[in-house]
């Protein structure tokens, strides 16, 4: 049971890393908290659902389409909302209010448009049946979702550390003032980071029906809590720390389900409280921030 929880947790955790990555990127670059992140994941799931049922598109094909589409849609959203927010004196605090409102609007409109019933994609649309990983049997759909998450995180890492745009992004994350003084266009970097954050949320949403059983318009708030926990555990503001946060959350959840199943729901709260009490910068905070 322990080995199964550990193996399953690692696979599950890769997905949770993807779940929190976009949230952390947006915070890292702009120091704002996108409380609508969970609802964007839900919209990604709905997009995948309709692409499959109306156009017969496999989730693997839907993934780049949804991510690309969400990136493009995020740019006008950024232009409409973010510049004024970022110009405010208390942008970080005001972002809670702004994105909480956006989250409520998205949830209400989704409930009206799609109805409250659960929706999912058949496992065969990705991969049905079990697969043996690390000596343990896990659903193939988990393995595929985790693989996509690892690829997305890998591409994100490469772009952040081996491209000019990534260099600028890291400069803004380290010090927006110094980055601006060096001639970096803060607004452009912020817009792209916001777009990427939304795209990563959409991508995570495509695989949500496989990892979370089913999706409903009301799922956004609980996903926010999980995403926030993975971000804080890793290191708030350091996107790559989210990978570690996701793995800790995934393994922790399955261990809780194995040994304290009734209390498994408490895990995100327990992780948040423990991190805030004992290591507020996150488990990888110092090293990543120095780097």
């Amino acid at each position, binding site marked *: 049971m322990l080995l199964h929880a550990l193996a399953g947790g690692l696979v599950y955790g890769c997905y949770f890393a993807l779940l929190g990555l976009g949230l952390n990127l947006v915070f890292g670059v702009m120091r704002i908290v996108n409380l609508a992140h969970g609802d964007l994941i839900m919209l990604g799931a709905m997009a995948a659902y309709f692409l499959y049922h109306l156009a017969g598109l496999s989730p693997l094909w839907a993934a780049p389409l949804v991510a690309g589409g969400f990136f493009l849609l995020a740019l006008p959203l950024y232009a409409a909302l973010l510049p004024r927010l970022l110009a405010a004196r208390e942008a970080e605090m005001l972002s809670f209010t702004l994105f909480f409102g956006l989250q409520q609007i998205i949830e209400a409109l989704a409930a009206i448009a799609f109805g409250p*019933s*659960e929706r999912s994609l058949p496992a065969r649309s990705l991969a049905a049946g*079990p697969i043996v990983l690390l000596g343990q049997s896990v659903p193939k759909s988990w393995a595929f979702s985790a693989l996509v998450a690892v690829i997305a995180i890998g591409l994100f890492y490469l772009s952040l550390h081996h491209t000019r745009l990534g260099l600028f992004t890291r400069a803004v994350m380290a010090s927006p003032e110094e980055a601006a003084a060096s001639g970096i266009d803060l607004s452009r970097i912020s817009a792209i980071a916001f777009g990427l954050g939304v795209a990563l949320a959409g991508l995570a949403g495509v695989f949500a029906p496989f990892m979370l059983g089913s999706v409903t318009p009301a799922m956004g708030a609980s996903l926010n809590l999980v995403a926030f926990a993975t971000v804080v555990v890793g290191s708030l503001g350091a996107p790559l720390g989210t990978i570690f946060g996701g793995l800790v959350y995934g393994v922790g959840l399955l261990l809780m389900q194995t040994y304290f199943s*009734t209390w498994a729901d408490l895990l995100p709260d327990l992780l948040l409280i423990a991190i805030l009490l004992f290591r507020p910068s996150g488990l990888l905070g110092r090293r990543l921030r120095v780097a």
Partner: protein
Amino acid sequence: MLLFDPTGTGAAFFSKDNPYIVLLADPVSSVWPRYLWEFVLNEGPKLGLKRIALLYATNDFTGTQANALRTALKAPGSPVEIVFDEGVPTSTSNYTVLIDNIAAANPDLVIELGYTGNDIAFLRNLQDSGQKFKAVFALYPGIETNVLMKNVDKSGLAGIFTYVTALGLDLKPEAGLSLAELREAYEKAYGNTGVEFGWNAIAGHVTGIVITEALAHADTLAQEDLRKAVFSLSGKLKTLDGTFELREDGAQIGELTPIGQFDAEGNLRVVYPPELANAKPVIGQT
């Protein structure tokens, strides 16, 4: 003031000193699983179902059902043994590790009690896990059959035991619409809203019927008169859900749901109690 409770079945809602609530459209959770425990105790040993795993979501609805089942199955002289007994948060959306842990206890029958989202996740994870059990009972396939069929597919429901509600019984009501009439009216009114026609839609209709009948029998709208009027229907009113019957504390004890099993084509057949059964239970690898 009197609270007309459509489907809130938690046992804690009802007590003898609380005359302010009446449950209208489904049985209180402590008696709801009566046919289930009778099936397990009476038919289980004959079918080779002696080792029982109980997995439930920890809310009033399913938690109370789990408590009632546990009490019945652990009664002195019980021919069955509970080998796994765990509650999970209602928000649980991943059952893979739990299924693996259940398999480690080697049960013959797995009883999973959850809300719609729980049951979808459980049955999908069961399909993908590769684990097989002799028999599996899940709560919601018989309650919101359309939703479960869309999310789990008939291949995932084949062989699953569940409650058979008014959706699968087509009872003849003495008041209100028939099942076919209600389904037609529902689809006409709500067909495009994304809310599937299921047992909860029937419960809403039955609630309206009981309130209508109660108002017709009430002398005044005062709490005591309304309660007296509702109680005057107890044991007499035949609804789409079955016979409406109240216990002294306002809990509904009629409208019980038989036990059924899905066949490979997605049809739900009643297997218990014998007087209502139209099929024999099939025990195999679910």
